[in-house]
């Protein structure tokens, strides 16, 4: 068991979770005081000792399922009416028709009978997934085959028609019934996933399965190539991240210097020590905050990256004395007011996508023209405290690059940074013209993940 724990922790470290030696020791001790037979308790306890950040929860859960599933040496509860997971079942199950099977599943869903649900998941995988030992396909394939046969959408419909929460008398209750049906179905889908995973682990061993199921931590996902699900997860990760970033920036700013002596407070404090000013009080410091101007390419390929960056910058806008944002494709438009008018970044992003006037000619990025307009619109509204941030892959579609506008702008601002969401290896290949702009920027940085973005923003001052 301790050997298994070590291998599990090695896997967590491969995923990128920071697990220290003392946490390993704690987990081992925890295993001594807790009964391993209760899976849920066991999982909670391991998670409590090994993972100290809730954003890593999902990555932990995935790895846990791989390493501690399929090892249910009979001491764990197996659902009634089901044999051990790995042996092809014999007995009553296969004789039932698909219809009966679905009815049983529906009953189990209505009663929320965990054992029966588990049994149904096992049965479904047995009947429909076409699982074969040694076949080199991923879990997603079996999952797809299983769920396709089950037709869970119509099960969900019947389930919500039953009125789990209350009779379908009005639209509110209808909605609640629908949500509840969906929740139970998705719980069942999780059980199916677990069942498939169990078989895969049994077939190939935990290490091999971990290799294919490993989760990328949200902050390490490559924004340009993220899937829909990953983008959703990034969206969720962004809120706590920007909050942390804002408090870090604020703290740093406050700590740097203390303000002038506060006579009134000092004298008041000295009264409690007989007029001796033991505690000297200072006013809080008020250092100048920097101004930030963001210019983001929102053409197809880099749009999601621009969205995240604008989102992050506006979420921490209190840390700057002024934030202005512009977006461009081949025309430029200011979008600062979209963020000012709503608290919901998704709404602002939507308005940028639909309302911003960024297309002047053919709808392909034109950095030269965009820079020209940008500099023109900024006019004299920049000064030595302004930091300019340009986001884009500098893929110019063979238009004129016109770096002279950037050179001109640099004369008048404090610094220009360029964040490029492409891997460094692709720069200056094809129509990418990073090299032409690079001499006029403080720095051009590769910025593909939230982690890189966060590092950059926290270094700004």
């Amino acid at each position, binding site marked *: 068991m301790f050997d298994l724990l070590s291998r599990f922790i090695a896997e967590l470290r491969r995923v990128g979770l920071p697990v220290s030696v003392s*946490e390993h020791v704690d987990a081992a*001790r925890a295993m001594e005081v807790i009964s391993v037979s209760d899976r*849920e308790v066991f999982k*909670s306890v391991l998670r409590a000792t090994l993972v*100290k950040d809730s954003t890593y929860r999902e990555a932990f859960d995935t790895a846990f399922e791989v390493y501690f599933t399929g090892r249910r040496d009979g001491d764990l509860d197996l659902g009634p009416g089901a044999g051990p997971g790995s042996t092809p079942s014999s007995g009553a199950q296969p004789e039932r028709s698909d219809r009966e099977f679905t009815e049983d599943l529906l009953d189990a869903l209505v009663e929320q009978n965990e054992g029966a649900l588990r049994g149904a998941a096992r049965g479904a995988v047995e009947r429909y997934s076409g699982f074969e030992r040694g076949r080199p396909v991923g879990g997603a394939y079996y999952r797809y085959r299983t769920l396709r046969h089950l037709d869970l959408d119509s099960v969900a419909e019947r389930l919500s028609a039953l009125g789990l929460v209350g009779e379908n008398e009005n639209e509110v209750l209808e909605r609640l019934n629908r949500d509840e049906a969906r929740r139970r179905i998705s719980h069942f889908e999780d059980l199916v996933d677990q069942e498939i995973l169990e078989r895969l682990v049994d077939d190939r061993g935990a290490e091999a399965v971990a290799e294919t199921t490993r989760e990328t931590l949200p902050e390490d996902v490559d924004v340009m190539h993220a899937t829909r699900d990953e983008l959703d997860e990034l969206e969720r990760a962004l809120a706590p991240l920007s909050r942390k970033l804002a408090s870090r920036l604020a*703290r740093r700013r406050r700590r740097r210097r203390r303000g002038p002596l506060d006579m009134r407070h000092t004298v008041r404090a000295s009264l409690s*020590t007989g007029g001796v000013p033991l505690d000297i009080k200072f006013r809080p410091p008020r250092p100048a905050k920097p101004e930030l101007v963001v210019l983001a390419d929102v053409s197809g390929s880099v749009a999601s990256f621009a969205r995240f960056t604008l989102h992050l910058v506006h979420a921490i806008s209190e840390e700057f004395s002024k934030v202005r944002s512009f977006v461009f494709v081949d025309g430029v438009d200011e979008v600062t007011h979209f963020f000012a008018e709503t608290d919901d970044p998704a709404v602002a992003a939507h308005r940028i996508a639909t309302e911003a006037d960024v297309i002047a000619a053919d709808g392909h990025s034109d950095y030269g023209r965009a820079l020209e307009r940008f500099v023109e619109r900024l006019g004299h509204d920049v000064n030595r405290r302004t930091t300019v941030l340009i986001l884009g892959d500098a893929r110019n579609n063979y238009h004129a690059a016109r770096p002279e506008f950037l050179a001109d702008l640099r004369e008048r601002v404090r610094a220009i940074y360029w964040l490029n969401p492409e891997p460094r290896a692709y720069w200056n290949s094809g129509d990418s013209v990073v090299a032409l702009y690079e001499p006029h920027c403080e720095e051009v940085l590769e910025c593909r993940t939230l982690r890189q973005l966060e590092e950059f923003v926290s270094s700004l001052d």
Partner: protein
Amino acid sequence: MSALDPRQALAERLGIEVPAPRFDSPDDVSMLLSGVDYLPSREISAVTFLADRLAKPVLVEGPAGTGKTALAAAVADATGARLIRLQCYEGLDESKALYEWNYRKQLLRIQAGRREDDQTSWSELEDDIFSDEFLLTRPLLEAITAEDPVVLLIDEVDRVEIETEALLLEILSEYQVSIPELGTVRARQIPMVFLTSNATRELSEALKRRCVFLHVGYPDPERERDIVLSRVPGISGQLAYQIAQMVYSLRQLPLRKAPSVSETLDWARTLVILGYEELGPEVAAQTLHVLLKYQSDIAAAHEALSAEG
């Protein structure tokens, strides 16, 4: 087993008897906490049980209003211990958290000494004014020097500066406090310690390493129904379930502020007072503002609830 038992090792170092475990099993935790009207999830029970057995503090993290502080209060209540609470805030320092010399009293003592013919030498006086009598204990010191059983709650630890966190480290891992003038004060018992955090900033690695971590999220509808039933008198099972489902559905929406458990309870009480037995569109229209605190959220909820499909 015994060689590994952290409670025994800690007790030996502190020179105290090995305390009896507070709980027999995770189920025992669930039972005791349910007895004081706190319905824990399996995870909460398991981690609480573990923290007691490993003699480690619990770092509880999660959204506001999900019962983090209530957990500590419930554990104190269930184990018959006194709750000592340290509310963290920016600017908290050791004189507010650990101990402080009562220098008003020290000054008085010195001045009182002068009146007489000044028999006491300076070193005697110094020993005198730096003794227990002149020490003001603050929550952390109080928790470890207490004779009766206590539960220590360090609330919203993410509000203090990262440097101040260091103050907590000694007490969290060694259960002792070093006072330069007095020496080291060791704990007379191993208290149960809870730290809560709203995750507004990253806590230091050193702090996290010393704790077991518990994420308290929103409860699932079944548990939330039970919470409503146990906390709101006179509510029917049907309505409680519908309330829990409603709140669950609302939390799936992209809201600025998702409803917390305490807001669910407020809403449930409102519905009971108004005499509703079932949810419907007009009930929602009239009372959703109890649950949601932003106009934009209320509008979004209405839209979602009235939309078909």
